[in-house]
């Protein structure tokens, strides 16, 4: 078998001034090409896990390996937009190119195209404070997508979006996956979204342990699928797992 894209073993994370471990012996592996959804109650450690995968945070103990060839092709979307306030929409999206020294006429066109796709074609010259919350989040998404990553880590990317925009972007993500050699790990609070976008759904509990690791086998996704009984079976099962978790402290 191929080497896994991501291998996590006995991962423990504790912040210096916290009483308990945030993540407790988390182990899983992600195969090449596989897409994973992360679910769990608020404050259980989803963001922390994603940050560990990205290498923003260092583990307290345990192993975490991202496959060699992917390591430099990771992209991250923070839970909040995190735009540079003195840069316009377009400049914010061009930032990765400027920082890696790969700003060309071509990459600039790519950025404009992505922003158009995300419904921001008329906002290229606006500063972040002139954008709505959902628009800001879409800019952040564009910033992650333009770098053509192989692995995309997304922290609740669609939480601030209306259903319709959200569905459109879900499908955009699926398209990108099909078109490029892209896989993603994403945090969401929507179980339906987890099932719709994930090949697997990981459920973390409040103690920071992996409570469930469900494989989703569904036909090629389109939004109609959400109305099918098989889809809803998955959603209901996960919902039950979720409700079986201990109450939030």
């Amino acid at each position, binding site marked *: 078998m191929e080497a896994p894209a991501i291998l996590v073993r006995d991962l423990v994370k504790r912040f210096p001034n916290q009483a308990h471990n945030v993540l407790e012996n988390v182990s899983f592996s992600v195969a090449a090409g596989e897409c994973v959804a992360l679910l769990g109650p608020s404050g259980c450690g989803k963001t922390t896990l994603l940050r560990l995968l990205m290498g*923003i945070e260092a583990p307290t103990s345990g192993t975490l390996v991202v496959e060699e060839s992917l390591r430099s092709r990771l992209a991250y979307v923070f839970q909040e*937009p995190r*735009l540079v306030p*003195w840069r316009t929409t377009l400049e914010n999206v061009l930032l990765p190119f*400027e*920082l890696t020294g790969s700003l060309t006429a071509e990459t600039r066109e790519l950025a404009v195209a992505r922003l158009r796709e995300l419904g921001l074609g008329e906002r290229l010259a606006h500063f*972040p404070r002139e954008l709505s919350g959902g628009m*800001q989040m879409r800019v952040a998404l564009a910033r992650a997508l333009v770098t053509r990553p192989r692995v995309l880590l997304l922290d609740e990317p669609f939480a601030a979006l209306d259903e319709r925009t959200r569905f459109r972007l879900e499908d955009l993500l699926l398209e990108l996956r099909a078109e490029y050699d892209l896989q993603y790990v994403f945090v969401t609070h929507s179980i339906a979204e987890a099932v719709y976008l994930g090949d697997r759904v990981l459920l973390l509990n409040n103690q920071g342990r992996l409570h469930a690791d469900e494989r989703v086998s569904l036909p090629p996704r389109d939004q109609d699928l959400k109305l099918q009984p098989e889809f809803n079976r998955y959603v209901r099962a996960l919902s039950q797992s979720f409700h079986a978790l201990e109450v939030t402290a």
Partner: protein
Amino acid sequence: MKLRERLPAWIFLFVLLVVWELSVSRGLVPDYLLPAPSGIWATAVELRAELWVATLSTFSSILWGLIASAVIGVTAAVCFFVVPILRRAILPFCVFFQTVPIIAIAPLLVIWFGFGETTVRASAFIVSVFPILANTLTGLEETDPLLRELFRLYRPSRLKTILKLQLPSAIPYVLAGLRIAVGLATIGAIVGEFIAGGGLGALIDSALTQQRTDLVFGGVLASTLLALVLVIGIDLLSRLLMGRRPYMRSSSR
């Protein structure tokens, strides 16, 4: 720069002058210590040619000193920021520049730069570089940690991060530093001229020995005016920079 904005300053100036004039003419303050504005004005008009030449020469020295301070101060701050060991090694000793009375190192300055403008500029530079350095350094260090994290994702060169993140967000600090430096460069130039001659400094110096307080204050006011012009210039620069782009604090709405 609208009239309405400047009005309070003019009114205050007017009140100040009236109170000053009255308290001298009523004998509350002896006029050989603090001459009345009318007296200063008369002297200034009488010696306008000399004052004008002196003012121009001092202005050029201030400007030189200030530009050198800005360039070297910001550059040094960036160097200290990039190489923390440099910062820890050298920064404490930069305070020396601020605490040494120029007059104590006057002979050294004269030997290195001669009797003339260069010494004056050096003096203006020496006293005004530290505020810019210190403020810029604080600005570089006080960037939004969230943005710092964002930038790190792309593993940019140190230089790129500084150019695109730290320097832009240090702009308010740099401008505040410049505002402080203006006054200091002015006094530095005046003191430099005490040492090397020329400009308003020499004028004030000899007026002091002659007890020509009217001329002393004429010279001092001319130098204050210079500083004011520069402060207004920096305010304009600051509006230009901050008006065009929000170099402000918060990284997200």
